């Protein structure tokens, strides 16, 4: 009972106190209003009148101040503090400059990388209701297929039978080649094959003309006669001519009508597509077994209105199961799956981008630690100012707030400079970014990016402002007046700066270790033996088109003559054509069976291409067994094959593959064509340097002729010097032959490493900057400590201590800091680098070599940074040092 009374009394007091405060509040507001009115009467503009009234009002006791009109006070204080901060910063231009530059580096790097992340991952796809689009795929555990291309017939069945799909569009992954002739120089274009409803399904509006139409997916002739051209191609080739619609151009010798111009920046299937052509399949194909057996299209579906992703998934599974039963021959193991289109498209760029984002975040943290230290050092120098202001009635919280405001002002200035740097950085990034690494190679600072920058500016301001703010608000005025700001205090201050430096070193260790791992991985990659020798080889794409080359023998004749003439050029050691050059991905893949194995036993997914006789000489591919092709392996002769050692190891263990026969049919029948293996060669890497060679078979070009090939010529000089001569020969033979992608094999090899090189270079740069900042941080703290200990050192030297020993005092201090930082950094990195796993080639995320050498290097750098102040301190004249206090 008594407690209740007491409580009531307490509550009453509380309310009464509240009332008194409200009264005071009102009274003061009245005062300011009167003052404002008076200012108005004397002719000031309203804003100025109020500001002046507030200013004249001056330092009301903090306790009362807290109960004034909150918003007004907050704003007024902020403005006042900001002005004060700017004034004090102007008084310390070197410090302010150093802090702003440091922050600008960190914030600029973040702006640049985040703009790429924003463009690639955060921005919705540039399609209508992109959230309703899903990517469909097939999977077959038996063949080790995940997220595989679809067989068109299956995709059409999904389209018809899955009610939750409003529509399904198909397209060929990547872009093929098409030759443009009759418009001056022939040109090899990047051509995309799409179903007629492709543009409509995505909801992409052409900027001119019309999109393709759904019925153009099929055509009785089996040839496309229409095309939508890209914005870039329209500008470059047709000068952005508005009358281009309806114009007929020759694509692969076929008259093709330009019906539309795609919007700028539309980049599906890939960036840089010149034309989109409808697939124009013959209708009877739908019932052909090949249409269900061969997997060569990507399928995108738009969910029907009201249909959920889950419903669509369930229905798709049902349909896929039904197809398994209906078409066991092709679909026995075929499952289907789907995922949001956006997730699918950002799939493999997400990790590198997030790694970059994480590393610039670390960089910014290091920058913050550095700036925090700078400010702390200065705070120590402002003891007297703080003491003075405390006696003048400023509250400690007010001082702390002011210190924090100062930090925020600094970070805001750093932010402005950072965004400017970031914009420059974006240009640099666009220039350095390997083609095809991201969906788009154009980034901009938009509201999302700016919002992010504002966040990191506030975040970093608070982060590095906390220590100085706590410092300014840490003690009672009496204490502050009594001491001149020395003694126990400076020890506490040193603890803080040391803590920041240790953190900085630890972060730099994480960053450098990450970079170190990527460097190691890259070195592994470039030392990979690709299975061929790229040095001195020139590659060029050549495509024949037109009635002159209707028959395979005409095509063969042309290329055989070309190769003969190229071989006759001075300095050329050999030349050959291949349908797919190495490192350009896989050509065709098939299932195959081996003669003499149990009936029904077959093997999956061997990649094959045709090469001319000299190919292995030109590319220096090692022959391990048997022979290479000869001129005798021509059309009409018995079919022969050369396999790579991967096939031999996998399917001919313990037996000689030479002389064995295989067929590219799952279930051989009477009409199956059998080819005899005549040789085994070392495996070439088909996809990129980081993927092991796949099982591959080579077919003599004369036995499988194609009109578009890659010509490879080996010279004993600089391969790029060979290009003009070959072009001249081509011109003499037929000036309607299109040539593209003339590059040395070295360049192709380098390009296949472009992504890895780019990521590594970026990380090395960030780590370098981070390391530099950390070293500066270590140096700064030690220099400070050394300055403070100059007197002590003077005395020690005066008393006969060896100089080396005195220096060691400082260096030992530095070494201690660096060691603690390195140990923490290594532990953190062990966790952090796990995320790099997928990006590393033949290097473990916890690679011992990296984890030993890099911290060693860092420690050495740290000690070097410690020597300078040590030497300076020990040089001090003892007499001067003694007086310096």
């Amino acid at each position, binding site marked *: 009972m008594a407690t209740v009374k007491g409580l009531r009394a307490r509550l009453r007091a509380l309310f009464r106190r509240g009332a008194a405060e409200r*009264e*005071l509040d*009102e*009274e*003061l507001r*009245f*005062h300011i*209003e*009167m*003052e404002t009115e008076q200012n108005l009467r004397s002719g000031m503009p309203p804003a100025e009148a109020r500001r002046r009234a507030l*200013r*004249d*009002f*001056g*330092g*009301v*006791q903090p306790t*009362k101040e807290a109960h004034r009109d909150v918003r007004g006070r907050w704003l007024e204080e902020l403005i006042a503090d900001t*002005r004060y901060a700017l*004034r004090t910063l102007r008084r310390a231009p070197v410090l302010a400059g150093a802090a702003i530059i440091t922050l600008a580096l960190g914030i600029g790097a973040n702006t640049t990388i985040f703009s790429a992340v924003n463009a690639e991952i955060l921005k919705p796809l540039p399609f209508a209701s992109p959230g309703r689009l899903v990517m469909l795929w097939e999977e077959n555990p038996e063949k080790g297929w995940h997220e595989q291309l679809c067989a068109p017939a299956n995709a059409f069945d999904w389209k018809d039978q899955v009610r939750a799909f409003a529509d399904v569009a198909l397209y060929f992954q990547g872009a093929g080649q098409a030759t443009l002739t009759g418009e001056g120089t022939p040109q090899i274009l990047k051509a995309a094959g799409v179903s007629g409803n492709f543009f409509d399904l995505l909801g992409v509006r052409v900027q001119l003309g019309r999109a393709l139409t759904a019925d153009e997916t099929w055509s009785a002739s089996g040839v496309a006669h229409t095309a939508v051209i890209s914005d870039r191609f329209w500008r470059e080739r047709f000068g952005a001519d508005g009358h281009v619609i309806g114009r007929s151009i020759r694509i692969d010798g076929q008259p093709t009508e330009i019906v539309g111009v795609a919007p700028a920046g539309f980049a599906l299937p890939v960036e840089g597509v010149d034309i989109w052509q409808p697939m124009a399949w013959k209708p009877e194909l739908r019932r052909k077994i090949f249409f269900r057996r061969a997997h060569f299209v990507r399928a995108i579906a738009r969910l029907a209105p009201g249909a959920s992703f889950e419903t669509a998934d369930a229905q798709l599974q049902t349909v896929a199961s039904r197809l398994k039963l209906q078409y066991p021959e092709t679909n026995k193991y075929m499952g289907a799956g789907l995922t949001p289109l956006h997730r699918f498209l950002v799939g493999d760029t997400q990790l590198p981008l997030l790694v970059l984002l994480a590393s610039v975040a670390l960089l910014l943290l290091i920058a913050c630690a550095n700036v925090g230290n700078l400010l702390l050092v200065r705070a120590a120098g402002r003891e007297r100012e703080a003491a003075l202001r405390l006696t003048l*009635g400023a509250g400690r919280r007010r001082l702390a707030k002011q210190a924090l405001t100062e930090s925020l002002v600094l970070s805001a200035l750093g932010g402005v400079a950072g965004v400017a740097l970031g914009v420059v950085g974006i240009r640099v990034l666009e220039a350095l970014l390997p083609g095809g690494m991201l969906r788009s190679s154009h980034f901009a600072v938009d509201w999302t990016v700016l919002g992010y920058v504002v966040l990191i500016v506030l975040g970093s301001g608070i982060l590095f402002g906390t220590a100085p703010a706590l410092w300014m608000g840490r003690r009672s005025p009496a204490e502050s007046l009594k001491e001149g700001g020395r003694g126990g205090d400076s020890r506490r201050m040193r603890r803080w700066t040391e803590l920041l430096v240790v953190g900085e070193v630890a972060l730099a260790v994480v960053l450098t270790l990450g970079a170190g791992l990527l460097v190691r991985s890259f070195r592994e990659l470039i030392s990979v033996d690709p299975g061929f020798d790229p040095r001195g080889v020139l590659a060029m794409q050549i495509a024949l088109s037109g009635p002159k080359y209707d028959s395979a023998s005409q095509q063969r004749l042309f290329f055989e003559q070309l190769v003969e003439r190229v071989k006759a050029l001075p300095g050329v050691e050999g030349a050959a054509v291949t349908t797919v050059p190495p490192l350009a991905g896989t050509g065709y893949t098939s299932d195959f069976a081996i003669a003499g194995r149990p009936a029904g036993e077959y093997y999956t997914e061997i990649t094959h291409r045709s090469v001319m006789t000299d190919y292995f000489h030109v590319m220096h591919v090692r022959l391990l067994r048997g022979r290479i092709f000869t001129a005798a392996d021509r059309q009409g002769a018995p079919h022969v094959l050369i396999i790579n050692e991967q096939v031999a190891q996998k399917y001919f263990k313990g037996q000689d593959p030479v002389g064995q026969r295989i067929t590219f049919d799952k279930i051989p029948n009477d009409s199956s064509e059998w080819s005899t293996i005549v040789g085994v060669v070392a495996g070439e890497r088909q996809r990129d340097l980081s993927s092991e060679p796949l099982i591959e078979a080579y077919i003599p070009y004369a036995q499988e002729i194609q009109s578009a090939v890659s010509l490879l010529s080996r010279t004993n000089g600089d391969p790029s010097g060979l290009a003009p001569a070959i072009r001249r020969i081509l011109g003499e033979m037929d000036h309607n032959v299109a040539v593209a992608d003339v590059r040395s094999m070295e360049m192709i090899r380098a390009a296949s490493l472009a992504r890895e090189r780019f990521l590594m270079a970026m990380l090395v740069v960030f780590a370098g900057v981070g390391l530099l900042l950390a070293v500066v941080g270590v140096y700064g703290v030690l220099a400070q400590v050394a300055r403070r200990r100059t007197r002590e050192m003077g005395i020690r030297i005066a008393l006969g201590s060896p100089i080396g020993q005195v220096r060691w005092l400082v260096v030992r201090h530095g070494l201690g800091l660096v060691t603690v930082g390195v140990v923490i950094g290594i532990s953190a990195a062990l966790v952090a680098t796990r995320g790099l796993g997928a990006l590393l080639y033949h290097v473990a995320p916890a690679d011992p070599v990296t984890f030993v050498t890099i911290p060693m290097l860092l420690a050495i750098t740290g000690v070097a940074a410690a020597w300078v102040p040590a030497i300076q301190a020990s040089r001090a004249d003892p007499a001067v040092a003694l007086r310096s206090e």
Partner: protein
Amino acid sequence: MAAAPSAADVLRGTLDLLVLKTLTLAPMHGWGISQRIQQFSRGVLDVNQGSLYPALQRLEQKGWIESEWHTTENNRRAKYYNLTRAGRRAVGDEAASWRRYVEAVELILQVS
């Protein structure tokens, strides 16, 4: 930022006397008091509100002044301060001690 104010700040300790003296004329609100002091001193003295309101509170706690809320002529609510009887006595005492102090300072200035 701002130029130094031309008016001198009221010395601590004399503020109480000035406030009490001002209130002998009529009840007034805080802003009025600060205006009055400025007027009477021909603009020489500038009352810092940071000390005026604490001073008013102090005087009220001492029982020398009392406050009441009234409506001003242009219809705003303001807190008016009024001298109590104890306050009137205090004005005399405070004024006397101030004069003694000023005389002493004056004497010293003449000597040196």
